[in-house]
């Protein structure tokens, strides 16, 4: 994503000029988008009176979302413990889920899923029943990802704008994980 793909060719009095798709998305059309992009989490400037109520509502949504990510992490860990052969495939997805948890304000979880740390019988406490069949285990994990994504999609309806954007992105990531898990061949 370093260069600017799919630019629009535009001609004007000063001669041909190329305008980027990103410019369309964030610059010419939406200066607000660029501002937000540069400023990161500066949302809701001057939101006014109901901002307190919304802030605490957001806090609830945030911690619920973090809990969802932590539950998914536990599911990944349990799956990796039961099926160490899946570790290579699952670890990249697990680390993305860990970053989701952090984005929702959860403290960085321990990297307990490293295959060397998960000896038979001495792994982390199982909170999830993992099917013994590897393919079924992947399907179960895909289902968990999809359900969590659905919950986030529901939650973003009432969230403040910036949190809604984060929830939508993480839900999309979860749906993509579900796709990868369901498609992967064991």
């Amino acid at each position, binding site marked *: *994503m370093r260069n*600017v793909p799919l630019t629009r060719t535009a001609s004007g009095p000063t001669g041909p000029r190329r305008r*980027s798709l990103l410019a369309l998305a964030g610059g010419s059309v939406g200066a607000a988008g660029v501002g937000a992009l540069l400023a990161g989490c500066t949302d809701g400037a001057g939101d006014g009176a109901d901002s307190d109520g919304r802030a605490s509502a957001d806090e609830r949504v945030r911690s619920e979302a973090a809990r969802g990510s932590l539950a998914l992490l536990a599911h990944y860990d349990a799956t990796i413990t039961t099926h160490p052969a899946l570790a290579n495939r699952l670890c990249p997805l697990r680390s993305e889920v860990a970053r989701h948890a952090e984005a929702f304000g959860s403290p960085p979880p321990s990297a307990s899923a490293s295959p060397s740390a998960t000896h038979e019988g001495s792994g982390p406490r199982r909170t999830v029943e993992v099917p013994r069949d590897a393919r079924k285990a992947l399907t179960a994990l895909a289902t968990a990802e999809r359900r969590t994504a659905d919950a986030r*999609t529901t939650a973003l309806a009432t969230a403040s704008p910036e949190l809604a954007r984060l929830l939508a992105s993480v839900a999309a990531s979860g749906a*993509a*994980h579900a796709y990868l898990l369901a498609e992967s061949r064991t």
Partner: protein
Amino acid sequence: MSHMSRARQRMANAGGVDSAKAAEGSAREQGHDTPAEPTLRATQAALAAEHAAVYGYGVVGGRIEDQRLPEAREGLTAHRARRDALERAVRALRGEPVSSAAAYALPFPVPDAAAAARLAGEIEARLCSVYADLVRSAEGGARREAAAALREAAVRAVRWRGSSVTFPGLTERTAGSAPSTAASDVADAL
């Protein structure tokens, strides 16, 4: 779909309408105090991106291997539907929908199937970004639609690329894509 690729060659020299200016104009008509203005802008941006996606998928369809042609067609159909829905959304916001450009410069040469798949992945990744912004700007049903579109684009991006992204559409959280880079991208293209 290979005819669309040939059409691209023909259109490559044609000048496009600067629909970004049209978007600004129609946004201005709403007045700067209208709460709907950021929503309109973000909706127009998503529409412009879907126009580009429809064009880009035409190129993809002309180069992709037969085995993945159904996937390309599926993508094209989905993006046409999103484009049409966004045009309706812009009108509902009392805006004039931005039009498609006659041609779009591609981010890289697309001589073969591998490049076509890469282009499709790139198109979807960029759509994630505009839909994430639309989620932020919109409320209610429009926000839900934008979130659904973001989700679909993210899944399609993963299908084309084979690997996932931690925060689809959130360029400021993407490693290696500092805001300053994004800002210079915006200033002018290529």
